[in-house]
Every structure is written in C-alpha cells, then in structure tokens.
C-alpha cells in the first residue's frame, strides 16, 4: 500500500481539509480495520462454538458411564453348598467355582422377587437371572473367600445389574430394541421396573468405573478404567524421570556450553524435526529396539514410558532451550564478572530463572505423552485387557498393562453400545487428568516466576 505517495489530492497541501471530516482514504483504512476485527471475532466465536459443542457432547455422553444400576438382595450363603466339610479350609473353599455360587444368587433373586410380590413372567423361573450381570457369582465368591465366616448367614449384597437393564434405565435400551436381542427379553424389563418400585434396584454412582479393571467384551457393566490409569501412571513416572533430566541436561549443554558449529546446527535442526515426527514412528522404533532387540517385556508400562520419553524429549528440549535463551545475558555476565565458573553461572543463576519455563514445557510434554495412543499400538499396550491390578512397584513397570487412551480406544471399538458410553466416560477422566496437569503448570509458572 502506497501510504506515502501524495498523489491523490488533499494531503499534499494544496487543498485544506478539516480534521472533523474523514477523507476517503481514511474511511477505507478504517473500514479495512473494522473488517479485520470482525473476522477475528468471527474466528474466535466459531472456535468457542466448537469447544462448547465438544465439551457438551463429551459430558452428555460420558456422564452416564459414572452411574450403574445395582440390585440389592439378601443372599443366603448355604454351608452345604459352599463348604461341605464345614472346616472353613481356604483350599476347600477355593474349590467351589462360580458355578457353585450362581444358583445361590439366582434363587436369592427369585425369593426376593416373591417376597415383594413381583410376578415372574417366565416358564422357567431361573431365566430371571439375566437381569443380573454375569459377574455377580464371582462377586459373591470373592466376598466369601475374603471372609469365610459369612458362610451359613444371609448377607445383603449390592450386585451389578446386566448392562441391558442398566441401558434401559439410561435410555439406551428400549423394549423394541430387545426384540432382536438374545440376551434379554422385554419381560425382564417389566420385572426390572417392578424391582425399582419395590426398592430392590437402583441406579447410583459407580466408583468401580474409576478404580476398577477392564472386563470381557460381554460384561461392560463391570469394566473400569482404574488399572489402565495405573498403567498410565507408571508410564508417566518413567517419562518424568528420564525425559526431564536428559532433556534439561541436553538443553543446558547445547545452549550454554556447546560451540556454535555445523555439528551443533545439525543437532538443532534434527531436534526440531524430531518434534514433528509422527508418534507412530516412535512406536515402531520402540518395537524394534526395546522389544525385539533388548527383549523387554511386551505391553509393559516400562517400554511404553521409554517410547513416550523419546517422543517427549524434543518437546522438553525445545521449551527448555527457549526458556534458557529468555534469561537475559546480563545475568550470565554478572555471574562471570564476579568470577563464577560457567557451570556456577548456569546452575546458580540461569537455571533457577529458566525454571518456570522448563517446568511448564515438561508438564505440557507429559500431558502430550499421557494422551498418546499410536505408539502404544505397536508395543502391545492396546488390545491387552488390563484385568488385574499390578501387585507391587516392579510389576507396575514390568507386567502387561494398558494406558488410559489405549483403554478408551479399546472400549470404543467394542461392539456393545454400553462400551461406547464407557469410552466417553473414559475421555472425561482423561480430560480431567490433562486439565489438572495444565493447572499445575500454570500454578508452577506463577510461583517460580521472578522479575529481573
């Protein structure tokens, strides 16, 4: 724009203009500015709209996953069935499998229904047990094995309802949709409605979704994200304790000590490029190096952490170097001027001042690693069903596990719509983690920030 040329009239001194009237040129410039502002506001509004839509759909779809339908009934733990010898020997008790417990629970349900005067609309009364999750026998068995004194008593149990019944109360399952469903009939729903009226069945908050373990494909009501959370936790430990010291040490060397030559230039370019390498490339590298060459266990958080460390390092190095660069050179001069060595000037003065930036970069790198799925795909952390809590710290690092985003992916691809709901719920938990980490980053930045 040739703002400086005075060829178009009024500005070149021949004609006098008033300050109160806008010239055509000024009007055009003001109009351009207004248009630009409108574009900006429009872009922000569009962004906000999508953000709100995204958050709304996540919350609306995910919240039901935190609730579950439970059946509360008294179960008589018959001694004749559970402990024939009557000596409460743990080895004998363990011999009774869930098949031994199942009839007890079923008959307890039938008894409870009859007590409440609820009609059982099946030719075989036993069919009503489909209302309950197939995991209930195991739940009762675990309780008994943990406390054998309960045998012979009648104990109140809070048992999971089947995912179809649960879905009915959450609006996912209707009587019409059950016509083609072999797992449950419409009559079961009639019984379920009656049980709710009688107070035997209730939908309430389900902590097992947050703290529990994954379950098989046919039992979505039992699945929880807890174990994969542990997997993610151990991976983050590995990433933090490898990527932070290595990344910070590398940045300090490159920024403060390394000579400026073509080798360091090459390294610099490569680090910047590594930050942009697709994460799946790190996954296949991890598969080749850590699993096939170094023979580390598959699906282990240790390997996952190593791969994510490789992925996070460039992020940490770039942000650390940026924050080291941001420390004014006068501070280095001041330290060198009083006779500090290079290392003293870095560790006593430069590093503390760069700390907020380093910590923020690290936490953002960790958050990125926490949400990463693709590299886990290749080292076997996706597809593994994390059904056992690791026992102990070593097992936490070395025994197969999953990670939160991998678990979510796993749920999302399962056929049962109940798992779809759980995938959304898992997303909420993951987002809560990420937000917490970002808030910590902001707080740390505020706390360590110093002016110079």
């Amino acid at each position: 724009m040739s703002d400086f040329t005075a060829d178009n009239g009024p500005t070149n001194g021949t004609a006098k203009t008033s300050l109160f009237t806008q010239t055509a040129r000024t009007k055009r410039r003001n109009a351009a500015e207004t248009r630009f502002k409108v574009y900006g506001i429009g872009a922000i509004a569009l962004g906000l709209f999508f953000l709100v839509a995204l958050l709304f759909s996540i919350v609306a779809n995910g919240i039901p996953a935190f609730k579950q339908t439970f059946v509360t009934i008294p179960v008589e733990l018959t001694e004749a069935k559970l402990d024939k010898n009557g000596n409460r020997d743990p080895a004998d008790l363990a011999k009774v499998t869930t098949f031994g417990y199942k009839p007890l629970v079923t008959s307890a349900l039938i008894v409870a229904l009859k007590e409440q005067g609820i009609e059982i609309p099946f030719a075989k009364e036993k069919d009503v047990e489909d209302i309950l999750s197939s995991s209930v026998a195991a739940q009762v068995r675990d309780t008994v094995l943990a406390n054998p004194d309960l045998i012979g008593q009648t104990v109140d149990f809070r048992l999971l309802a089947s995912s179809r019944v649960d879905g009915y109360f959450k609006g996912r399952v209707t009587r019409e949709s059950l016509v083609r469903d072999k797992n449950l009939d419409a009559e079961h729903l009639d019984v379920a409605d009656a049980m709710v009226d009688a107070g035997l069945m209730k939908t309430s908050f389900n902590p097992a979704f947050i703290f529990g373990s994954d379950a098989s494909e046919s039992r979505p009501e039992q699945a929880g994200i807890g174990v994969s959370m542990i997997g993610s936790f151990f991976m983050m430990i590995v990433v933090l304790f490898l990527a932070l010291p290595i990344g910070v040490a590398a940045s300090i060397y490159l920024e403060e000590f390394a000579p400026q030559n073509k080798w360091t230039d090459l390294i610099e370019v490569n680090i910047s490029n590594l930050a942009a390498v697709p994460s799946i490339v790190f996954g296949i590298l991890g598969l080749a190096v850590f699993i096939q060459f170094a023979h580390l266990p598959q699906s282990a958080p240790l390997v996952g952490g190593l791969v994510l460390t490789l992925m996070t390092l460039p992020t940490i190095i770039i942000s650390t170097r940026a924050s080291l660069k941001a420390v004014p050179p006068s501070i280095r001069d001041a330290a060198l001027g009083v006779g500090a060595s290079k290392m003293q000037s870095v560790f006593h003065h430069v590093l503390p001042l760069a700390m907020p930036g380093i910590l923020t970069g690290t936490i953002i790198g960790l958050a990125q690693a926490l949400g990463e799925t693709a590299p886990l795909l290749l080292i076997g952390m996706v597809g593994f069903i994390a059904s056992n809590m690791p026992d102990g710290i070593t097992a936490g690092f070395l025994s197969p596990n999953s990670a939160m985003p991998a678990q979510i992916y796993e749920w999302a691809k399962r056929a049962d719509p109940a798992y779809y709901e759980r995938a959304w719920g898992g997303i909420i938990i993951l987002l809560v983690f990420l937000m917490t980490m970002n808030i910590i980053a902001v707080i740390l930045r505020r706390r360590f920030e110093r002016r110079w």
Partner: protein
Amino acid sequence: MNDMRIVRKDVDMNDTKISAKGVQVYYGDTHAIKDVDVEIKDKTVTAFIGPSGCGKSTFLRCLNRMNDTIDICRVEGKIELDGEDIYDKRVDPVQLRAKVGMVFQKPNPFPKSIYDNIAYGPRIHGLAKNKADLDEIVEKSLRRGAIWDEVKDRLHAPGTGLSGGQQQRLCIARAVATEPEVLLMDEPCSALDPIATLQVEELIDELRENFSVVIVTHSMQQAARVSQKTAFFHLGNLVEYGDTEQIFTNPKDERTESYITGRIG
C-alpha cells in the same frame, strides 16, 4: 555537570598493573582491535573514550577475558597482569576474573536479596569462613559501594527493587566484594540520571585508593572528571594515550582533537 567537582588527589601512579602489547581482536572476519599497546597503572583511574563502535568496550572485555564467552572472538597479542600473561594456557579465566572484577553498562543485580548479591562472590571463592565473616564482608563492600546507609535496613529485600543508581552501586559493591585488584567498568553511568552519575563518579574516585580502575565512557566530561589517564580509541586503533589533562588540553593527534572538540564522533 561540567564543573570539576572532584578534587584531585596525589597518588602514586608509577606501578604498571596491566600491560598490553600488540593486541589484535577479531570478530570472525572483522578486525575489531588493531595493534593496541597500553600500560594501565595501579591505583589510577584510566578512561577509555572514543566514538561508538571504536572497540573500547571490546578491549576492556579482553582485560578479564570476558570475550572468551563469544565464540567467534579471537584475541592475539599479549596482555599481562602484574607481569603474567593472562592469555597463557595455564590461566583459568575464573581465577583471573576474581582478580579483575567488572561492572557493566546496565545495572544487572541478581534477582536475589541485596545481601545475597554481595555474598555470592565471596561464597563461591570461599572468602568467608563463617556467617559473621560474610556479614562483615557484605557490610564492608556495601560501604565501599557507598550504598550501605541506604540499604542497611533492608538487606534481605530483592536487589532488583532498588533504583537504577542504587542498583549500579550495588553492582560495584558486588564487584569489590571479591577483593579484586583491578575494576573494569563498561559505561557504568550510561543508564543513570545525573545525580546517580555523580554519586557513582565520587565512588569511582574513592575506589582509586584501593584498586586500579579502568572505565569506558561516552562522556568526555566524565572522563575528564574521574580519570588520571585517558586513552582515545578510533576505528579499532588506540590513537592517543596519556595523562587526562594533557589529552583534553593539548592533544597530540588531530583525530583526538577533532573528537574532543566535537567535530567527529
């Protein structure tokens, strides 16, 4: 500020503290300092004057090897401190900088307390055996920096909270805390107002009793006020070096005269 407020004192100016011979400095391909010979006396204030970019700061930074931190900078020739070549392979620049302290153009206190600013140097050089020793060094240095009275009640307040002039005196106090023999000052007053400048100049004159002071300045009046010796640099050459009075009243080189009278610069 043109009057000479500082009363000249008679001091012994015979001992050579720093002697530079044939010093050449290159920044990459640029020849920044060309064959400079200079003898800096002990217990004297020596001023380096000259137009911007003439190399006076570069030369100053050679005297305590601060140019080592610049990768592309190369120094040739010989600079001796008390007869020892400071560019000798055996010299550790850290030890050298403990002997040759430096004050910079912009006040640059550490973002720490006033006390820690002063105590940092003595701490890393192990000059204090215990807390009481350190307290003493801090007080003595702040007194030498002519700032003790202003900060004695808030030693643990941040050094960055002081005014510009106070910060610069704090930096001078920090530099003298390590008991250097030479004090290099790179335009110490260019960021200060006239009153703060006067305070710093008075301080420089007092420091002369204990140290050899080398000061780079843009202000010829300042050079005339505080220094006993003056060196005039132009385009990387040391044009003229001599007693301040002689340089300002009776310069031998016509470039010096042109600069002093304001015709070049």
